[in-house]
């Protein structure tokens, strides 16, 4: 892994980082500098992902932050806004297709912010979402990606934090500090060690 500048942070490339935050202000305080750091180098792409409308809102916040319209970058495919899908297979495919498109366009680094939801109509069911999060570790290993997955501690239920943020991300960013995550379970073990035993899937 080679290091990249994750806004104020230095993230490995590739990386899959859980951002633990409280509320929208903290989210923007971390995600916007992270994305903004990718705007100047023309070799970097930005990928905002979430429920319908969420990626667009993040992009608007980024535009406000830089003080200009980012439509040209969006039209050029340098900024991509992806949508969640209740079908986990489609959601996974959407992410892979976007990363492949970045690679095909020659971008050497992609900054990915995937805003999560739990038990939401436009998102896969929780167990499928957890599988998706774990699977992302395998997917991004083939791409030059710095991925940031915000988890709002004030909104997400405890099991989303415990099983999702802490067990599917090798790194955790909290309070501005990036740490290796000892709770992380490698994707080749996560399905059998965790997912099939999730309490709400038991008879």
């Amino acid at each position: 892994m080679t290091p990249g500048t994750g806004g104020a942070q230095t993230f490995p490339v590739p990386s899959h980082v859980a951002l633990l935050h409280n509320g929208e202000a903290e989210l923007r305080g971390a995600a916007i500098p992270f994305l903004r750091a990718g705007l100047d180098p023309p070799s970097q792409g930005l990928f905002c992902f979430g429920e319908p409308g969420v990626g667009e809102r993040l992009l608007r916040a980024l535009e406000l932050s830089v003080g200009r319209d980012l439509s040209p970058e969006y039209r050029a495919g340098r900024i991509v806004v992806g949508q969640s899908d209740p079908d986990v297979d489609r959601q996974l495919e959407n992410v892979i297709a976007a990363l492949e498109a970045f690679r095909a366009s020659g971008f050497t680094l992609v900054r990915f912010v995937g805003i999560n939801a739990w038990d939401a109509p436009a998102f896969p069911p929780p167990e499928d979402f957890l599988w998706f999060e774990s699977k992302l570790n395998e997917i991004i290993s083939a791409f030059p990606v710095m991925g940031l997955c915000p988890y709002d501690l004030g909104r997400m239920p405890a099991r989303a934090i415990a099983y999702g943020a802490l067990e599917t991300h090798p790194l955790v960013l909290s309070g501005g500090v990036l740490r290796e995550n000892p709770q992380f379970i490698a994707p080749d073990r996560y399905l059998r060690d965790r997912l099939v035993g999730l309490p709400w899937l038991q008879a």
Partner: protein
Amino acid sequence: MGVYEIERSAPDLQRGGIAVIDRHGNVTWTDEVWASGDGQVYLPRVPIGTNLLHAYRRLPDPRAQAIANALSAVLEGTATYFEIEHRADRESQDSFLTSVAALRGNGAGAVLIHRPVGVRDASYRDRQSDLRTLDGPPVGGGIDRLTPREREVLGLMAAGLDNRAIALKLRIEYTTVRGHVRSVIEKLGARSRLEAVARAYRNGWVANR
């Protein structure tokens, strides 16, 4: 026919019950006032004669639209019933499950169930499965309904492979895999890919974990 569950759309529902609707969406019977915690998403009261589909469509909240979509699926015959979770005690569950079983035999267009949350014991699951089998596929087992290819796909799902990897492994088209996965989930009566996988492990249909 599948089962369309929208319980994920209604995590905050506090009360509930059963309503029977005709094939046009009009309520013909209800056992309880429907209400929600916030009083916005769910209809505070559903008098007999209310067209539930229209009523939900008029509500601006996207979760209400999700309910309306589910209801449409029921009326169009692509789903047998749908469920909304709510909190209730065990006695209420028994009562409404029994009622639903009886009502479904009377040719109702659909039965809408507010299902209690936090009760996942075997007895409840079994009875829920019985209800689903009135019109749909069995969900207690279901492995015998899978084709050899679907069983193979289930095994690969349980090994953690995504659809692309399964397609490579079996040397078939991605879209074909996708169809197999959807079919496996539906035939097993699961709501999700991982629920199907968990069921496969639990029942010993795939190699022991």
